[in-house]
C-alpha cells in the first residue's frame, strides 16, 4: 500500500528531526534547529497525506472509514496529533530545544507502528460496533487532547532539569549555562506546560463527551465505569486539579511540572495500559 510507504517516510522524517533537535542542544547551532523544524513540518505533511491516502485506500476497498480504528492507525494518528500541537507551540515560542523532548514520543509510536506485522497494519473492515461517525469525532478529540498532554510533559521534564540545575548553581541569579543554555527559560517552559494543557484539557473533555454520546447511542448508557472510561476521567481530574492549582501560588513551576508528568503517565496508561493490562470495551478491534 502506498500509504504505508508514506508512513515509513513520515517515521524517517520524525527520526531525523529528533536527532537534529537533540544535536541542537550541545552544538547551539541555530541552523540545525531550523532544519529540524523544517523536517518536522515535512514529516507532518507526509503524515497528513498518508492518513488521507489510507482513508482513500479504505474507500477504494469498499469500506471508506477514517483510518482510526486499530492500534496501528491510532499510533500514526497520535504522532500526527503530537506534531501539530508541537508545531503550533513552536510558532508561538520558537523554543526549538523542546523538540528534543517531544519528538521522541512521536518517534516511539511511529517506530512501534512500523515494527508491527503486516496483518496488524492492514485496513480492516469495521465490526458493527465501530460503524459510527462518532468514532471519528471521539478519536480525533481524544488524541489531540493526549497530544497536548505529551507536549506539556516534555516541557515539564525540561523545566525540572533546568530548575534543578539553576538552583544547584546557587543564588547567583545567572541562568544555567552549558548544555542547558539552549533550553528556553523556566518561565517559558512553565508557560508551554500550561498552554499545552489548556488545549489538551478541553479536547479531552470533548473526547469524553463524544465517547459518552456514542456509548449512549450504541449501548444505551453514556457512562459505565469501564476501565478506559474511568481512566479518562482520572486524567480529566488530574488536569482539572492542575488548572485549578495554577490559581494558587504554591502550585506553579515545580509542582505543576510534576502534576503534568504524572498526568501524561496516566494518559499513556489510559491509552495503552488499559488495553494491555485491564479488560474492557476498548480493544482496538483485535489489534
Amino acid at each position, binding site marked *: 500500500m502506498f500509504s504505508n510507504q508514506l508512513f515509513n517516510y513520515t517515521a524517517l522524517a520524525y527520526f531525523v528531526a529528533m536527532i537534529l533537535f537533540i544535536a541542537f542542544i550541545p552544538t547551539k547551532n541555530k541552523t540545525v534547529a531550523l532544519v529540524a523544524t523544517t523536517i518536522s513540518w515535512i514529516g507532518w505533511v507526509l503524515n497528513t497525506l498518508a492518513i488521507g491516502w489510507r482513508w482513500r485506500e479504505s474507500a477504494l476497498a469498499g469500506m471508506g472509514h477514517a483510518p482510526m480504528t486499530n492500534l496501528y492507525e491510532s499510533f500514526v494518528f497520535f504522532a500526527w496529533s503530537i506534531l501539530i500541537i508541537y508545531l503550533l507551540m513552536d510558532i508561538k515560542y520558537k523554543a526549538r530545544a523542546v523538540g528534543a523532548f517531544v519528538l521522541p514520543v512521536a518517534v516511539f509510536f511511529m517506530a512501534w507502528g512500523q515494527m508491527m506485522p503486516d496483518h496488524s497494519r492492514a485496513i*480492516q*473492515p469495521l*465490526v*458493527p*460496533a465501530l*460503524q*459510527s461517525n462518532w468514532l471519528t469525532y471521539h478519536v480525533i478529540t481524544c488524541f489531540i487532547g493526549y497530544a497536548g498532554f505529551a507536549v506539556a510533559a516534555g516541557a515539564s521534564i525540561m523545566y525540572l532539569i533546568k530548575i534543578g540545575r539553576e538552583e544547584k548553581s546557587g543564588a547567583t541569579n545567572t541562568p544555567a549555562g552549558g548544555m542547558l543554555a539552549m533550553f528556553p527559560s523556566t518561565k517559558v517552559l512553565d508557560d508551554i506546560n500550561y498552554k499545552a494543557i*489548556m488545549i489538551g*484539557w*478541553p479536547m479531552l*473533555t*470533548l473526547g469524553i*463527551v463524544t465517547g*459518552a*454520546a456514542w456509548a*449512549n*447511542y*450504541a*449501548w*444505551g*448508557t*453514556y*457512562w459505565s*465505569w469501564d*476501565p478506559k472510561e*474511568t*481512566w479518562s*476521567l*482520572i*486524567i480529566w*481530574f*488530574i488536569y*482539572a*486539579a492542575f488548572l*485549578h*492549582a495554577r*490559581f*494558587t501560588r504554591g*502550585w506553579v513551576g515545580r509542582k505543576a511540572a510534576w502534576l503534568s508528568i504524572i498526568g501524561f503517565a*496516566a494518559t499513556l496508561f489510559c491509552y495503552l495500559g*488499559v488495553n494491555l493490562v*485491564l*479488560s474492557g470495551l476498548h480493544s482496538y478491534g483485535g489489534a
Partner: protein
Amino acid sequence: MNTKKRSFLEALWDFCCSLKLTIITLILLSATSVIGTVIQQNRSPEEYLRVYGETTYRIFETLGFFNMYHSWWFLGLLALFSLNLTACSIKRLPRVWKTVFNPVLVADDDLYRTLSNMEEVVSKQSPDTLKTKIGEFLKANFAPARVTEGEDGKVHFYAEKMAWARFGVYVTHASILIILIGAIIGSVFGFKGYVNIVEGTETNRAWLRGGAQPTPIDLGFTVRVDKFSVDFYEGTRRPKLYESIVTIIDDGVEVKRDRSVIVNDPLTYKGIVFYQSSYGPAGDPSFVLKVTERATGESQTYNLRQGQPARLPGGEPFRVANFSENFQNFGPAARIEIMPQGQQVRAFTVLQAFPQFDAQRGDDYIFSLVDYNQRQYTGFQVAKDPGVWVVWIGCILLMVGSVVAFFLAHRRIWVTLVPLDGGKTGVKFGGASNRNQPGFELAFDEMKKKFKQELGS
C-alpha cells in the same frame, strides 16, 4: 459563645470554599478511581473469594471495593466535590457580577496603581478636543466607551470587551452539577436492563441488570422479533451487521412494524430504548437433507431436527449428530452418523457449500445438506434514562463554558483626562485583562503607540 459559633461557621464556610479542598478532592477522586479499574466490579462473591481469599475479600467487601463507584465514600467524595464547587461559585459570583454589570467607570489613582499596563501623558490639546477624539479612538480601536464627567472637570472613559467571558468558569462549574443531576435523575427514574427474544416470539418484559436476582420489569407494550440475522464481510468471518427485525405491539395495535434494529441504530418507543447487543442459537436446528442412492441415482429428501433418528431407504438408521454454522471456515456443516445395528458407527461431515463433496466418501448413499434452519435469539440492552437530556445539556454547557473560560478574556481600558493649566490636558490610561496577560500587554502596547500619536497631533 455566639461569636465562637459564628467563627466556627465561618471556618466551615471557608473550608467549603477553599481551592485547596478542590485540588485535594480532585486528586483523591482520581486516585481512588484507580481501585475500581484494578478490581473487577460487580462480580459474584465466589469469584472474589477465589481471587482474593477470605481475609482480603472481607476487607474489600467492607470498603465497598466491589461496587466502589456506588460506595458511600466515593459518592461522598463526589458530594464533597459538588459542595465545594457550589460554595466556590457562590462565594465568587457576586464580585464577578458586580464587575460585569456595575463596573468601575471612574478610575482613581488607586486603581491605576494596580494596573500593570498604565501610561501617563501630557497633551497640548484641550480637554474638550480630546474628549471627542478619545471617544472615537476607543470606538475605532477597542470598544465604545462610557464617559463620566466629574465635577472637578475630569473626564473618565471606560471601555470593555467580552465582559461576559467572566461567566465562563461559572457556566463550567454549573454544567458539572447539571451533569450530576442528570445522572441522578437517570438512576432514580430510569432503568438498565436486557432481554433475549427468540425469533418469531414476543415479550412484554425485560430484566433489570445488576441485581442479585433477575428482576423482571414490565415494558407496558409488546416486542416481537420477526427475524434476526448476521452478515459477514465477504470471504471472512468478520461480522458486518447484526440485525433484528422488530414489531412493537401496544394495546393490541402494531405501532411499529418491521423496524430494523442494528448496532449503533437503536429503537426507541415510549422512552424505552432497545439496543442490539447479542445473539445466540435458540434450541436445536433443523435440516433439509438430500440422500442419493449411488447405485440407482434415486434421491430422497429428509426434514430432520438435530438428533432426530431417521432411516435410509436401505433401512439403516442415521441422524444429524452435530452442527456448525461455520465449520473450519467452509460455512454451515452437519455431522451425520449412520448407525447400522451391530456394526461400527459411520460418521462424516457434509458441507452445504459443497453438495458433491460427500460423493468422494464412496459410500452407497451420498448425503448433501440442502438447507438448515437455526432459530436465533437476539439480545437487547433495554434502557430508560429520562435524565440523559439533562446530561447532554450539561455537556454542551461544559464545552462552551470551558472554551470561554480558557480562551476568551475580559479586557478593560480606562482613560482619565485631567485639565491642566494653559489649556493642556493630563491623560492617564490603563488596561487590564483577566486572562492571557502577555497577549493583552502586546495589544496594549500597540494601542498605546497609536494613542500617543493621536494625542500628539
